[in-house]
């Protein structure tokens, strides 16, 4: 079946199988930041934006994205770079495999709530699993990033 998806701002027309998952669609189109993790809709590694909302691409049919916009980390380089570089400088992560999904969901969170509390961060990111850091490093990284932004905005 033929679908038209705006992938990272570029309209793409593709012939897909009825049961093709969105993760397979975006990876077939070169968006390799989108990782296959648990495949049980739990880990958040495959997070993409579907019409600007974070969703698990392992759990949506590509057919359902017909006529919609899909954004992966490849399409958010500018918005993501400041946070991703900051987190790297903080040494907040280890292997980095969960990083793209994590960064995507942090961006989604900051778009909804630019100044979240620690509790709000934990709640929003509960669907992003990390098996190296125990989350403490990531949480510290986000809090320090928000603190840096606050101080910069005051200047």
């Amino acid at each position: 079946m033929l679908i038209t998806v705006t992938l990272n701002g570029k309209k793409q027309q593709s012939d897909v199988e009825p049961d093709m998952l969105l993760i397979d669609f975006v990876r077939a189109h070169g968006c390799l930041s989108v990782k296959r993790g648990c495949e049980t809709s739990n880990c958040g590694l495959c997070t993409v934006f579907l019409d600007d909302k974070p969703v698990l691409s392992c759990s949506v049919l590509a057919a359902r994205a017909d006529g919609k916009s899909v954004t992966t980390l490849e399409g958010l380089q500018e918005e993501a770079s400041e946070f991703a570089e900051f987190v790297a400088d903080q040494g907040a992560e280890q292997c980095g495999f969960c990083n793209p999904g994590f960064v995507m969901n942090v961006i989604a969170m900051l778009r909804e709530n630019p100044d979240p509390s620690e509790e709000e961060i934990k709640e929003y990111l509960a669907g992003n699993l990390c098996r190296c850091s125990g989350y403490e490093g990531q949480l510290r990284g986000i809090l320090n990033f928000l603190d840096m932004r606050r101080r910069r905005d005051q200047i």
Partner: protein
Amino acid sequence: MFSAANYIKVKSLEEAWQLNQKRSNKIIGGMLWMKMGKGRIQTAIDLSGLELDRIEETDEYFKIGCMATLRMIETHPELNRYTSGAVREAVKNIVGVQFRNLATVGGSIFGRYGFSDVLTVLMAADSSVELYKRGIIPLREFAEMKYDNDILVSVIVRKTPARFSYMSVRNSKTDFPVLTCAAARYENELILSVGARPSRAKAVSVPEELANKMMNEDTAAEIGRYAASQLSFGSNLRASGAYRRHLTEVLVKRACMKLAENGEEEKSCL
């Protein structure tokens, strides 16, 4: 993951209903639970083009379209104001935001899953389901019905004056619940809904003489014991039936105390 030979984004409920009469065809809601299966679907029926992903509010009710997501009910200010935040409390631990942006209210309710937080909380409210062919049926009745090939169009939550509270226990955050419990205090009735027993949620109406007692720790504990005596409990990998029975007493007690707290807060706001 299931496989599907065809995918049809239907243009009407009648088209969806006609397709859904064939056993090998399936309606896909959020498809999060469905994707865990390995079956073969002839035609995947998608309702996402029918504008059913809306929450409509009138003076009398909220009408939640079957394709509205769990995230939509979690963040709907008026629905949460009416339910004293119980709806948000019920869904906030369901995996993560990305999951809740996909999971639909229709899928959660039509599935009548034992583990469903959504079924538990909406069952305590004055809720009905709107089925395409059978019309409007109280949710508590629908929860007892066998699966059929009708289509759940919306869930209607009437704004009957009430206070709500919601509690659940999970072995770890974002996991399936070990037990879910919602309480609703209406003018003349106290309704408790307990799910994940591990069977699907069931509502219990507390006898008037007990419900109308002055709420304190002792009364709440008595209501907890009453609720546990009215329900059946089973064991699975997450917990034993005996543990669930005990949890019911504890959660119902806490839910009743929370109701009393919510009542006090309301009074102090007046």
